[in-house]
Each structure stands twice: as C-alpha cells, then as structure tokens.
C-alpha cells in the first residue's frame, strides 16, 4: 500500500521511469545540455515533413519524442496502456494531435509549465496502483506556437524586458512501469496547491510562480521533517534567474538553505550568452531538462536522490487583461537511484 502524508503520496513499491527521451530545437542545441538530448533539430518548422504551421510543428516535436522514448523502451505504441500528455496550446491540441497518430488511451492535462510533473505525478500514481502497466507521460512547448498565441507575431519587432523568459522549443517523454522493472524509481509525488501573491506582471512569470514552488517544497519538508541537504539536488521548473533568487531568499527566511538548488530555466540555456533574458520556460523546458540532465545523472549514479518540481503560471490572456493576478502551482516528484546503481 502507498502511504499518504499530508500532500505527498509515498510509494511502498515505487514505480520506475524505465525509458525517457528529450527532443529540442536550435537554441536548445546551442545550450549547455545539448549532449543530453536524443534529437536536436535545426529547423523546428518541420516544413519538409509536411507541417504547415507552428502548431503542427509542436505536434511533430511530441510525435518524434514519443517514438524515440518507445524505441528506447523497446516497445511499440500498441503496448502503451495510457498516456498523460499536455502542452500550452489552446485546448491542449499539440498533445491531442500527437495522440491521434499514436492511437493510445490518452488523458490530456493542462498545468502550464508545471505539466511535466503533473503528468509524472499522475502517471506514477497509476503505475504504483497497478492501473497501468506501461504509462507514457509527455509534455512539449514550441517557442513559435507560444509566441503567436500569447504574445505577438514572430516578425513583430519588440524588445523583451529583463525578467521575460524564453519559451523552450522542446519535448520530453517518460515511460513509467510498475515496481520491479529496471529504471529510475519515483519515490513520492506531491501535488501542489495554487498560490497567488498578487503578481500582475506577465513578463515576470518567475516571480509569479516562486510562492508555489516554495509552498510545495515546504509542504514536503514539513511532512517528512526533511531538509534540502537530504537531497543531492533540488530542481525547480522554470523560475528563471529572478524567480530562483526569490526562492532562495524565501527559503532562507523559512530556515532552509537551498545551496543545492538548480532551475531548469537556467540549465537549459546559458543565460549570459544566449539572449534568453531571465532563462527558459514552457512545459517543454522542465520536461527536456528532466530527460536530458536529471534522469541520466540518476542513471549514472552521480545523484542518488533528487526532488524535482515543475512550476506553472495558471493565468490566461483573458484573465490577465481583466486585471487578475497570476496564480502559480508546483508539483514535486521525488526521484531515487536505480536499484542496480544503489547496490554498487
């Protein structure tokens, strides 16, 4: 039986991430994590492959990612029992069209940039409970699709503010299996609570999402009487430079030293060199960092225990224009070392 402690579900028999894949675009390929990606594309428009718009290009990104993940797992799409997937497009269409081609049972999720851990939490719970033998979880984002939907046309000339973040053109996919299979164990999952501390600046998502990350971290630490030093690394989704600094300040105030904290938005790009302002963002950002950096490190035994959070900003263009503040959410996944590596 799994145990529930406060907001966290602890798995007695932890399900495992048995295979994973990360796909990225040009700017991601120029970043520090390039070598961790399974596929990097120079032209993320996928014109020669029949994509007519940026939305279908994002679908292509997901399709490629899913197929690589399944190939690495050595299974066919027919063997997948359930897929949790999400993206940032209106009505979650990038995932829906990717699943149309894949033909697996599918539940679409929306958690903005937190979607990867939202999917992982649900996927792990389903795998842990024995409801699904092979669960695919996947998220993506595409810079161009996000830009034209949420900001301005791509050829429009605008200058970004220093706190703005760059939507990653990337996708990440994980295949979850029940305990007893080789892979990275998911030790616990924590569903976050929506937090809103009155941030209204749509160009400062990191600040809007920080309280959500802090609240989920504190919920976990309080529930288990744990501290950041119990982990080799604590990773947050895409708070960027501004949000990360705020998180460390806040956690210090709460009595926790977050010196082993990294943010996916700052890992995916070299913020000093790549002109992405405060860092990366988008559902694909934390998904790609998870699959290109975090899981490989756990696999190689360089890390033994990691707390991985993705943070999402849950406003829409409409609520923003109507003057609502920006609520945030963060879900956490606790990842351990694979059994083989742990015994060595």
């Amino acid at each position: 039986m799994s145990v529930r402690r406060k907001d966290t579900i602890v798995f007695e028999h932890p399900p495992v991430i048995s295979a994973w894949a990360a796909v990225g675009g040009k700017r991601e390929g120029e970043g520090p994590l390039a070598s961790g990606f399974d596929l990097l594309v120079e032209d993320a428009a996928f014109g020669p492959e029949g994509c007519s718009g940026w939305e279908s290009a994002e679908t292509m990104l997901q399709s490629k990612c899913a197929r690589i993940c399944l190939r690495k797992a050595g299974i066919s799409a027919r063997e997948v029992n359930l897929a949790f997937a999400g993206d940032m497009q209106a009505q979650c269409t990038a995932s829906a069209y990717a699943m149309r081609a894949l033909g697996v049972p599918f539940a679409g999720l929306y958690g903005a940039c937190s979607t990867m851990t939202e999917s992982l939490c649900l996927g792990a719970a389903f795998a842990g409970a024995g409801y699904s033998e092979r669960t695919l979880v996947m998220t993506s984002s595409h810079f161009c699709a996000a830009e034209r939907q949420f900001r301005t046309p791509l050829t429009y000339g605008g200058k970004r503010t220093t706190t703005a973040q760059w939507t990653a053109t990337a996708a990440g996919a994980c295949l979850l299996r029940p305990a007893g299979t080789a892979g990275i164990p998911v030790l616990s999952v924590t569903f976050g609570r929506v937090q809103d501390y009155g941030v209204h600046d749509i160009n400062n998502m990191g600040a809007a999402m920080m309280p959500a990350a802090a609240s989920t971290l504190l919920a976990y630490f309080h529930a288990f009487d744990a501290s950041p030093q119990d982990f080799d690394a604590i990773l947050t989704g895409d708070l960027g430079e501004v949000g990360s600094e705020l998180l460390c300040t806040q956690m210090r105030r709460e009595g926790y030293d977050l010196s082993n904290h990294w943010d996916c938005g700052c890992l995916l790009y070299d913020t000093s060199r790549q002109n992405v302002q405060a860092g990366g963002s988008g559902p694909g950002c934390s998904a790609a960092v998870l699959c290109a950096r975090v899981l490989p490190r756990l696999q190689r035994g360089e890390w033994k225990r990691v707390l991985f959070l993705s943070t999402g900003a849950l406003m829409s263009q409409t609520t923003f224009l109507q003057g609502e503040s920006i609520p945030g959410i963060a879900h956490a996944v606790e990842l351990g070392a694979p059994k083989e590596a742990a015994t060595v």
Partner: protein
Amino acid sequence: MKLDPKTYSKMVRRAVPHSPVLKDCLWAFFVGGSICLAGEILRQTYLTWYDGEMAGTLTSISLIFASAVATLFGWYQKLATHAGAGTLVPITGFANSVVSPAIEFKTEGWVSGVGAHIFGIAGPVLAYGTLAGWVWGVIYWAMSKGG
C-alpha cells in the same frame, strides 16, 4: 509560509534586474534618428517634384514599404530586439505592426486570419488617434463658429 503579498511585492521589486537604460536609449536614439534621417532625405528628394504635403505622404509610403520588406525577411524584428523604441515609435514600427500579423495569421486563412488580425496591434492607434482627431475637429469647429 512566511510571506504576504505586500512584502512579496517589495521583494520582487528588489530582485528585478534593471534595464540597461543608457544602452537602450543610445540604441533608440541612433536607430530612431537614422530612420527619421532617411525620411528627411526622401522628403527632400520628393520636394524637387512635389509640394510639401505630397512629399510628406510619399516619404511615409516609402518608409512603410521599406519596413514591410524588412519585416518580411525578419530583419525588422532582429533590429527591434536592440533598438526598442527606436523601431517602435517611427512610422516603420506602425507598418511592422500591420505587416507582421498579416504574415503570421496567413495559416488561419485570408479573411478570418489575415483580414481579422491585420489591425490587431495597430488598431488601438488608429481608433484612439481618429477619436482624438474627431474631438479636436469638433472643438475647432466650435471655435471657428464662436470666434
């Protein structure tokens, strides 16, 4: 959590990195100034054949054409990431705000996409500019009657 919205808003203000104002302004000044200088060269050229008003109109049309070409090749966007208001404020920025949605929303069709979005960014400028002109017109008319 030891946090309240008021404290947080102060924390955020402290954490936000400042814009490099001097650099931004130099870019804006030189790029904006250069666009205006190009406009003046065009205007002086047109003045050899046309009166002042028509020369002004032709200058605008020429700059709009240049901006449309630059937008088409993605150059205007690239310049704007440095120039900021230097590319925003001149008429070329207005043209860019009309041309870019037209190109962008072609995938949604010529009527519902291009046609419906073409003034998506420039619309407010036209709407409130026209309104302001109308209000001034009424005042001007009233003054001419009264005076």
